[in-house]
């Protein structure tokens, strides 16, 4: 089954270097109540892995260790497939809404 849009967006954000929850939320603009479950599901499906930040280092910064996410090989493949799928969306005319597709 193809991944839903939210999952692809999350994978994309991780691939783009956003490594933990709030960063990902800020990068893609979805709600936290959506993004966290998506992360769990992706991890369950083996598309991302998570690691806890080195505790010593966090202590040095006097803050709790964060949970970092990273893509697995399967996650990268799924992301590539998903991007391909969205790239292949049929172009639609937006003239009726008086909107011009952005150039560039």
């Amino acid at each position: 089954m193809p991944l839903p849009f939210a999952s692809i967006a999350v994978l994309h954000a991780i691939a783009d270097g956003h490594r933990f929850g709030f960063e990902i939320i800020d990068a893609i603009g979805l709600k936290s109540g959506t993004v966290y479950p998506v992360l769990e599901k992706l991890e369950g499906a083996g598309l991302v892995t998570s690691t806890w930040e080195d505790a010593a280092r966090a202590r040095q910064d006097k803050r709790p260790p964060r949970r970092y996410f990273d893509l697995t090989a399967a996650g990268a493949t799924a992301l590539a497939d998903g991007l391909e799928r969205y790239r292949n969306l049929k172009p639609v005319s937006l003239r009726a809404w008086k909107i011009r597709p952005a150039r560039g």
Partner: protein
Amino acid sequence: MTAGSRPTGWLRVLLRALAAMRGLAPASRRRDWYRQWRADVWHESQWVSRETGPQRQAATALAVKVAGAARHALWLRFYVRRLEMISHDLRYGWRLMVRRPAFTVVAIAMLGLGIGTSVTIFSWLQTALQPIPGVADRDRLVMLQGTTRTRNDLSTSYPNLVDYRERRPASLTDIAGQTFVPLNVTVGRSPRRIYGLIVTGNYFDMLGVRPMLGRGFLPEEDRAPGQAPVIVFGEGFWRRQLGGDRSIVGKAVTVNGRPFTVVGVAAPGFRGAMPHLAADAFVPMMMQATVMAGDRLTARGNGWLQPVVKLAPGVSRERAEADLRNVVRQVRADRAVSGEGSIRLSEPWRAYEVTVAIAAVIAAQLAVALIVLLIGCANVASLLLARAAGRQRETAVRLSLGAGRLRLIQQVLVESTLLAVGGGVTGVAVAYWAAGLIQRFVPTTPLPIDLAASLDARALAFALGLTALSVFVFGMVPALQGSYSSLVSSLKDSAASASSSRSRTRLRNGIVVAQVALSVLLVVCAVLFLRTLHNASAIDPGFSTRTALLATVDLLPAGYERDRGTVFMRSLLARVRELPGVESASTIRRMPLGLTGTSDTSFEVVGYTPAAGEEMSTDFSNVSSGYLRTMGIPLIEGRDIADGDIAGARDVVVINETLARRYFAGRPALGGQLEFFGRTVDVVGIARDGKYSSISESPRPMTYVPVHQIYVPDATLVLATTGDPLSVLPGVQAAVRDLDPNVPLFEVQTLAQHLETATFVQRTAASVVTGLGVVALLLAAIGLYGVMAWSVALRTPEIGMRVALGANRRDIIRLILGQGVRIVVLGLVLGLGLAVAVTRLLAGLLVGVTPTDAVSYVLTIVVLAFVAMCSAALPARRAARMDPLTALRHE
């Protein structure tokens, strides 16, 4: 404020909110959830504090994010629980299955058998209903047949076909003509006898069949007779017999002694548009004179084609039929054809008596197989109920510890699903192996009958549906029953548990009653079909000879014209009549009761005026002298066809009783005259009626014409023998070889083998339904045994008490058997009622017995009572042998 400082005021509020939400997350994930959120919030808050600008706005955004933590926690709760529960149930179910391998194997075997048979027969049914594979738009293809008042399966003549096609209404896309012909084909050095179709030029285009190699037929190859000796091979023949030689196209081959050019190989999977028959080659209509006797392209009265019609898209068969009937009426008026014949269009599987019979029999078998599956499910349900009884205490403990009933039902359903999936997989494996078995029922006939069935996506979907259905049937009952058992009584000791199992016992008894009833139904069906087979084999076909050898010669491919052919046949007959062991010998064009059907012709009776619209048509057979004597067909009056009935002598005919009665009412038929084939013939004999095309047909007119007066080049030798028919075969082969080594002898079989084809549908029905009936009986017996054994185990203390108080063995046996008898009698009564209601549907498939045949019912009762008592006797005996002390201690 510097990085890493203690939380400030509003951060502390957020963290406290987070801590308050902790309870929402599932225990197993709570710590991680909290750590992750706390770290993320902490980090963000530092970032917010470091930034200059609208702090309030950033803080609000952070608060909104934190609100999402609640949703995340709740989501986790359900996500984790679902995963955990299902994996727990799966593991638990798997452990139960492994721990009781006997139970598991029996349950899966019963389900697998039921699902396997059903899926197998489902795949057969699909084949039966779609008898023309490998064509485009097969839903739009229908067969065209001529009809009269009494017949609806007449062939069409070529001139009529051309007229119909030229004037076809818009509701028909096209009409193509075809008929099956045996061909002697020589490729390279080796001659082969194959079956081919002679087809009109539009054949491949209309059927949407693209050649795999080369081409189909060109329009100009369909114009002038004899001008285009070209042939297209079927893909199967090309692959099997010609070794898939891709250079075959353009090569010269010999067909019936005439050079032909191979122009193509048809697409794989296509085998012609004759239902259930597989053609190996295709030749154009204009080559008719090379492949069949006589010039049939101009004779309007001579029907020999089985046209196939393609309906226009979206047009119903009824519409097209009505339109085409108007065309037929015009054609008949314009061409001055007398009588009131018309046409009908029918789906391929409905076109012939035998195709309908095949479909009907297979549909009946599918119903039977589904009932067997149902009985199997009932057995598994019963076993699960028994097992649930063993787990009653466990269930009660779990309920009292707060497990929800839904939760328990889910667990039982997961177990059932595991069993059903096992059954489904087994079933598909069985079906995969068994789908091809249908071809075993095809009789030894010269025709290339191909019922090849295979498992396709639809059959697999059917298997999946059946698996789901069986989970529902056998899983739901114990699931509900198990979860509603009384809590208190189950937790108490076993004395009370006996009373709580009462409802379970009732349920199991009910299940067995249903099983017995269903197996009564199946046994009745099986007995009816067995009696049908017996009757069909015993039906008097109108001839008494039973030991005879049949062998066919075809002089057309060997290049014999009429005169030489006549001499050959007379010499051959003279020689084989001299062979030791041959009592009598003759020939006939087509043996009665073959699958090829009979030939018919229009005719007139001198002195008989047909009623308005009465269609005068009769079957006919071209026979040699002594045919009636050889076959043992009694003569009512007059004489047999004799040696003197040759061309130039007086034209004669022998008619049957029905013809004599119908058209010579009140006047002597002997010495009367018929007119057909453009001549007037004298009736010299009247033969007894017989069966000509099927065992169940009603009496119909038949005429025997001397083959030397109305010549055909192909004939089946009939040699009535005193001993083993095959013992005379070497002599016959030698005789043919002596006369002409180039004339092959083919389709050699005994009369007994030939007669098997006549009862092939009945035999298929009888063997499959009987097999399934036995399985059903066995399953019901197992079910009954299970219930009885369980009941004995349950009543052990009671039995011990009775024995201790002085009951003897006979009393105990009577006690236990009495319970079994009640179940069986109830099941019998219900089953017989069911059978009376249902077997009426089979009336059309039965021969010589009515659906309410008393003998069949009595036989069923006897068989069932015997089997039931056997399976109840074992537990009863065990109960009677019980040592009262042990039994009492059981408490």
